């Protein structure tokens, strides 16, 4: 069972906690109790997600998405940062490659998050595991890892917490979308800056100390240069890949 420890960078758990979590991982059950615990634990977090959903709904309408499109996007994509970026890129005709390509690249981090659930989720049925994964977002992933590491063995926690996020995210997108079509000229409220502000605040949450600085400077320089010479949105992909390659080559040395 030593193969169960595969997740990267355990944040704060002491050796004892990690050891006990490992013995407990043998028992992971998918039951109603876990579902409910996940839902209830996540409600306060989901309220914050809901507020964010309101903003997304307003911005989606301003960008020219129909209310239905915005709500369907929230219900089926369920990835805040990617959806906001997509709305920022939205145009007519829709830049299909840029929107879907950027969504993919922004969400590549989910690969690692999903992989980190393996020690526990291999004990669920495929159907339980793959349904739960649809509802994985940054917020409830963090809560779930915390819960699973504590050894409760509640396999339904990710799904329960994910459902809480999904409900608030979708309903608030609809409310924001309805309100968004009625508020008149967005520039009066500085709405043009809202996305920039949200991206800046998100960026702070991706800051991992000084190691982040060099990849980010490289990304900024590459993005600005590519934007100056190439039409379209290639600068986004170029910046992301530049940061990624910088990080990799720096650590190889």
């Amino acid at each position: 069972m030593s193969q169960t420890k595969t997740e990267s960078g355990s944040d704060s758990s002491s050796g004892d906690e990690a050891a006990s979590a490992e013995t407990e991982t043998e028992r992971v059950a998918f039951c109603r109790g876990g579902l409910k615990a996940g839902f209830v634990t996540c409600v306060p977090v989901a309220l914050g997600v809901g507020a964010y959903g309101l903003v997304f709904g307003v911005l989606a309408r301003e960008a020219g998405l129909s209310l239905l499109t915005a709500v369907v996007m929230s219900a089926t994509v369920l990835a805040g940062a990617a959806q906001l970026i997509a709305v920022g890129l939205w145009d007519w005709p829709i830049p299909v490659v840029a929107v879907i390509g950027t969504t993919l690249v922004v969400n590549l981090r989910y690969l690692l998050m999903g992989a980190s659930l393996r020690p526990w989720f291999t004990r669920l049925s495929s159907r339980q595991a793959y349904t739960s994964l649809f509802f994985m977002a940054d917020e409830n992933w963090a809560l779930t890892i915390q819960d699973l590491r504590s050894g409760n063995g509640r396999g339904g926690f990710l799904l329960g917490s994910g459902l809480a996020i999904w409900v608030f995210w979708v309903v608030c997108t609809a409310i924001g979308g309805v309100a968004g079509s009625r508020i008149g000229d967005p520039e009066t409220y500085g709405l043009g800056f809202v996305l920039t502000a949200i991206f800046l605040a998100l960026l702070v949450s991706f800051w991992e100390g000084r190691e982040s600085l060099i990849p980010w400077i490289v990304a900024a320089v590459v993005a600005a240069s590519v934007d100056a010479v190439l039409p379209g949105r290639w600068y986004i992909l170029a910046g992301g890949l530049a940061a990624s390659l910088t990080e990799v080559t720096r650590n190889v040395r």
Partner: protein
Amino acid sequence: MFGEVSLTALAVVFGMSIVTYATKAGGFWALDRVEPSQSVREGLDALPGGILVAILVVRLLEGGPSEWVAGIAVLAVAHRMESVLLSMVVGVCTLLIIRGSGASIV
């Protein structure tokens, strides 16, 4: 009530949902088959930040000095409070104040 619904837009949303689910389920699925190396992990880890930086640089270059000042306010609040929404509100208010009063300075 839904306004004009574009099938193209719905198709794009469908595409977004497919690639997103592929990332959410793909890591769990693939780890059975390949163990990602340390450098792959680090590379993937650095992607979202790099993408945000790229988007921000272009937006801020277009935005001009008043947005830069408001942006600094956002960073300051986000750094201390870790609340995306609060930082956004402070940033937007800062921008509106700058525009309302000293727009000629910047």
